[in-house]
């Protein structure tokens, strides 16, 4: 693997870039692997990378039904933060943020992790209380998060309309300065390149159509559109398609898949300094390095695999954006797309073992999986390699839905009384 660096780039510039080789191979599937990862998104590729790098496994394949990164990895709004309320969530996302902070160097691939700060706006007394609860909780967990007054939010994000007379006035905000964004495609490709260099086979256009189990119930392999492939262990990292894949092993999941929409504006010169979120009005906005405003919208209300939602969902979000930033009404929507997100009842992910021996699942990331990518991949690899969860993902079991020990970030955000 040719190392990426300024000197190699300059050398290649003189050589018309003919010296670069494939970032990952295009291998023919072997008859069997020690570990198969189903799903070539950033979580799956990352898990393969860490399995090879940290757990010494070499006989690994990632099976992707389309092209790697074609699902939610390449369809999200790239927000990264770890200021979650519950200890379990905070630990998981902070694990990820710590890995994000060195990921470009780790992968020798510039994933453009930009710690421009994530500001969450409080619009009513209930938000204020809830955000202060987050701030205090995060700080005692060793995670940066600070409360900003109304005026301080304006200082941090000068574009903000903090007039007290608007429908959702800004009463303050919670700011995580270490939060930010990263380049989603680069994360996919960086992990793919890194995993490939460690011997992982990345097999695209290979859809799993069945999961085979032996007499003892343990997995033995999969059937795919490119033929059968044996496996000792299988990790499912299939995002919106998890329910379908797990059904192949006879496991019914506490998941539903919904379209989640996002959009970008035309690119403009820098006009927005940070990541800004307003849960009350459902607005999530940042500006990409290319200059596009990147805006996250909501999910449609019905189960769908169409990657296309209704305009009214996007409209609702743009209403909110233009209320907070009236000057943006003349910005233009350039692209509007959808991804299929798998949502759990408590809005927290499931990372762990399943009732089927040798089958592991990493799913349920809902609308927020991108930010967790390196952490999720890292602990999923641990879980598969050791057949037991990493302490960070131990609470995120499938079993919590039986015991009632939910990690309900959505409920904790609660509702205005």
């Amino acid at each position, binding site marked *: 693997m040719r190392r990426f660096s300024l000197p190699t780039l300059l050398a290649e510039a003189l050589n018309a870039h003919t010296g670069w080789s494939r970032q990952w191979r295009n291998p023919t599937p072997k008859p069997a692997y020690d570990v198969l990862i189903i799903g070539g998104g950033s979580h799956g590729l990352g898990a393969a990378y860490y399995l090879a790098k940290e757990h010494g496994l070499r006989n690994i394949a990632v099976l992707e039904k389309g092209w790697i990164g074609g699902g939610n990895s390449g369809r999200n709004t790239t927000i990264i933060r770890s200021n979650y309320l519950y200890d379990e969530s905070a630990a998981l996302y902070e694990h990820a943020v710590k890995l994000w902070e060195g990921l470009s160097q780790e992968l020798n691939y510039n994933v453009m992790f930009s710690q421009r700060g994530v500001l969450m706006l409080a619009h009513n007394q*209930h938000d204020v209380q809830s955000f202060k609860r987050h701030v205090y909780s995060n700080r005692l967990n060793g995670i940066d998060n600070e409360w900003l007054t109304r005026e301080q939010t304006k200082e941090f994000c000068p574009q903000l309309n903090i007039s007290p007379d608007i429908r959702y006035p800004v009463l303050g905000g919670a700011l995580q300065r270490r939060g930010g964004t990263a380049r989603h495609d680069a994360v996919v490709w960086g992990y793919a390149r890194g995993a490939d260099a460690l011997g992982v086979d990345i097999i695209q256009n290979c859809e799993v159509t069945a999961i085979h189990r032996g007499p003892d119930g343990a997995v033995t392999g999969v059937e795919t559109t490119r033929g059968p492939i044996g496996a000792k262990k299988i990790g499912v990292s299939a995002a919106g398609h998890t329910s379908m894949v797990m059904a192949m092993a006879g496991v019914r999941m506490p998941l539903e898949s919904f379209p989640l929409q996002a959009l970008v504006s035309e690119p403009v010169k820098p006009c927005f300094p940070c990541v800004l979120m307003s849960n009350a009005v459902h607005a999530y906005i940042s500006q990409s*390095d290319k200059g596009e405003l990147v805006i996250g919208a909501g999910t449609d209300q019905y189960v769908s695999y169409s990657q296309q939602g209704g305009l009214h969902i996007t409209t609702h979000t743009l209403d909110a954006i*233009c209320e907070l930033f009236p000057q943006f009404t003349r910005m233009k929507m350039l692209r509007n797309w959808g991804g299929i997100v798998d949502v759990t009842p408590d809005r927290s992910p499931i990372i762990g073992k399943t009732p089927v021996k040798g089958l592991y699942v990493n799913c349920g990331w809902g609308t927020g999986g991108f930010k967790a990518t390196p952490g999720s991949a890292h602990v999923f690899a641990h879980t598969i390699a050791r057949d037991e969860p990493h302490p960070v993902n131990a609470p995120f079991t499938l079993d919590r839905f039986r015991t009632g020990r939910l990690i309900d970030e959505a409920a904790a955000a609660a509702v205005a009384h």
Partner: protein
Amino acid sequence: MAQDFRLPGRGRIDRKKPIAFTFNGRTVGGYEGDTLASALLASGIRLMGRSFKYHRPRGVLTHGADEPNALFQVDRGTGRADPNNRATVVEAVAGLTVSSQNHWPSLEHDIGQVNDLVAPVLTAGFYYKTFMWPRSFWDKFYEPAIRAAAGLGVAPDAPDADRYVHRNTHCDVLVVGAGPAGLAAALAASEAGKRVILADEQAEMGGSLLADLTSTIDGKPASAFVAEALKTLAGRANVTLLSRTTAFGYYNHNHVVLTERVTDHLAAPDPKLPRERLWQVRAKEVVLATGAHERPLGFADNDRPGIMLADSVRTYVNRYAVAPGRRIVFATNGASAYRAAADAKAVGLDVTLVDLRPEAEIGPERALLSGIELLAGHTVVGSTGGKAVTGLIVAPLSGGSVGARRTLACDCVGMSGGWTPAVHLFSQSRGKLTFRTEIDAFVPGTSVQAERSAGACKGTYDLASILAEGWAAGADAAGAPSTRAFAATPATPTGFKAARVLPTDADPKNVRAFLDFQNDVTAKDIGLAVREGFESVEHVKRYTTNSMATDQGKTSNMAALGLVSEILAKDIPQVGTTTFRPPYTPVTFGAIVGTARGETFDPIRTAPVHEWAVKQGAKFENVSLWRRAWYFPKPGEDMHAAVARECRAVRESVGLLDASTLGKIEVVGPDAAEFMNRMYPNGWTKLEPGKCRYGLMLKEDGFIFDDGIVARMAPDRFHVTTSTGGAPRVMAHMEDYLQTEWPDLDVFLTSITEEWGVIAVQGPRAREVIAPFVTGIDLSPQAFPQMTVREGEILGVPTRLMRVSFTGELGFEINVPADFTQAVWEALFGYGQRFGITPYGTEAMHVLRAERGFIIVGQETDGTVTPDDVGLSGMVSKAKKDFVGKRSLARPDMARADRKQLVGLLSADGRTVLEEGAQIVADTRQALPMTMLGHVTSSYLSPTLNHPIALAVVSGGRARMGETLFVTTPAGFTAVKVVAPVFLDPEGKRVEGLVEGGVHA
């Protein structure tokens, strides 16, 4: 500037209506009917922009929506400036201030052009390979530099002066595109009597026919056909014609969304007009007649200003009466450019045509070239010039080898690499595309929704066929299939030979053939991407940014796809297709938002006594959908003083609260009590009519969902109240169970929130205040005890009068018809003056109930809290076999001893008012991450006790009474003592109003 390139005596511009605007400070003339692009070209201005990455000088490439280069900042006055407008679609209007973008200090001299010198470094994806060292430099140095260089125009920074509206409409047939196919379709569909909408993005309908001066249709000139068709359509009452209207999104179930630009073409628009109108059309059937986009040719330096699409040359000449140059070289691999060449020649321009195809493959189009030099079997290997093209370098091809170069001097190049059907809307409708090799293009295949395509967007390029196809599509959509033949002459030449990057004798390493002009993606970039393993077209797109620019790849998409397929030696369909997403062209946020701005963005709800409270100078807070009075400051009072005064009034005399925002649901029917039994954890069968009971509602997961007082009005009638925010979801929750789980129960649910206003009269004097006004109810404590309800009249108005208290004091909640609420309120307020009656807001309400230890759902609870957690296990019936949430309460986690339980906290220093949301620990010396026991849910300085009080949920809290714990504050930890979550009157005696004078905790 003089319009030196304006052609005499032709075109669809209105020469009687000259206009002038400024471009980069210079005045430019034109006529009504011009676009910015045609007016600039008429004045000889070729240099119109700088590319995104290399800042290469660029001119206009196209004449329509597909323009990647000529993007302008357009300023129409204060609050009306916006970036990235395509010069080819913005109509030239008097008084516009137009400027080019992405350069410094000027368009002519742009320092950013140094990027072009280091272009070999700035290749596809270069940024993934560098800027990683040292680590901290990315945020601080590299990224800001990249961001400053990126972007195109400048975002508006002033509020928008315009407004936008929406129209929702239905039609039988929506026809998108008013070129020949669309016109024919609309004629056919409307002839069948169907409601038809015909929409076209241009100022004038007619599409390609507007630039066609040679064709005749049924014996008449094309322009006459257009005029007659439009006249016919305009005369039909069942037809709506929408010009300047772009159908940009094709959503589910034939929901097609269009945006109409209402005023942009007007120099002084009527201020009453919206700037844009968004049409949300639900069409029974759709006809897509969206035409096709011409492809550029890939050769070295194919991006110099003056090099444009062949059909654009034709359009500028014929429609806008502009010569894009005087010496024009056409370069093509197909027949359509021959018409352009002939038309250019016809107005006296010097024309040469270079055709990649050998002489033998050239068809009847050859006849169009009378007097024009044809270089058949020639490739283009480059161009000369700087800020404008000065020559096209061509060379003969023979047997696969490139012959001697020859430079054709020119000031304009018209290139044609074939056509790409505009299948965007079809693809958005989720139709499956199919590839047609002979035209080297994807065309609509299988439909998913009720639509059909016709004409060039379906890959049909012959005019007579287009018209016939359009007619048939329109008739079919109208449910009255018919065919009609159109005689169109001369026959449209359609010969074509697919070409990727043109053959060259140059070292490919040194050739920069641009595919995506705006994003500066060259054929070399595509090659590099494929070499690095990016083989799916989506990977190539993302790695190189090809087709990601503001034109979304209308001119570049197929070129990249073709190139990848050539490099990989795979068929194009195997490489993949792009799935097109909305919008077809960029749409302003304003148009999408429409009128949902300011007051009409999520309208606020106000309670019946709102106006009175406004007049009293109340401060308000938003609570879910409502704006509620927060406190009523007197002159000179701050919030703290006002709330303290309000609280004291309630404790000592009497206060008034507008509680109308509480949700109210009437549960009626023979099975009402059984229904209540199943919905709530406590029992309802034994509750006698006339009595009230606290209702704690759980969801099926066992967690607290809502609460409120329930009054049994009659054996078959319950008056249920909910929290302010909970009203709709409680109603939905009940209705769901009633209809879907227990349809056998004979019960009706009615939301009565709006029907009844609620005035809470609270305080020892409450009875005295209401007594003079109440008739038909015995108010004596014996006849009307706490937690009962009576029906009677107040001020002659029917009332459901409840004796309930959320303050701990003697109190009543007066339900009266909403329209009479203010009258009753004012009467009580007037009469109550003798007792010092005091209106109080939500903040005092919160303090008063916290003193008494009452929870607020959503504050003490957060969706993970069980009845036992907040000390309300007594509300959970042990006797009932089942109710919603019961089974979940038996799960193992619900009985954990370390669950967070509701407690009271008293600050040890007697002064510190804790922050709501603050976290609680037992040991402040532990290292991070600390073990947190819980958090403060409510905290106030109690005016009654003159001491800070707080409610909190604390792990195993009920077993910690008397313990000292520590709570976070902005300044560090503060010590608190854990106490019972009741600070005042634990026995609940005050509701009898018996406590006179002082208050004792």
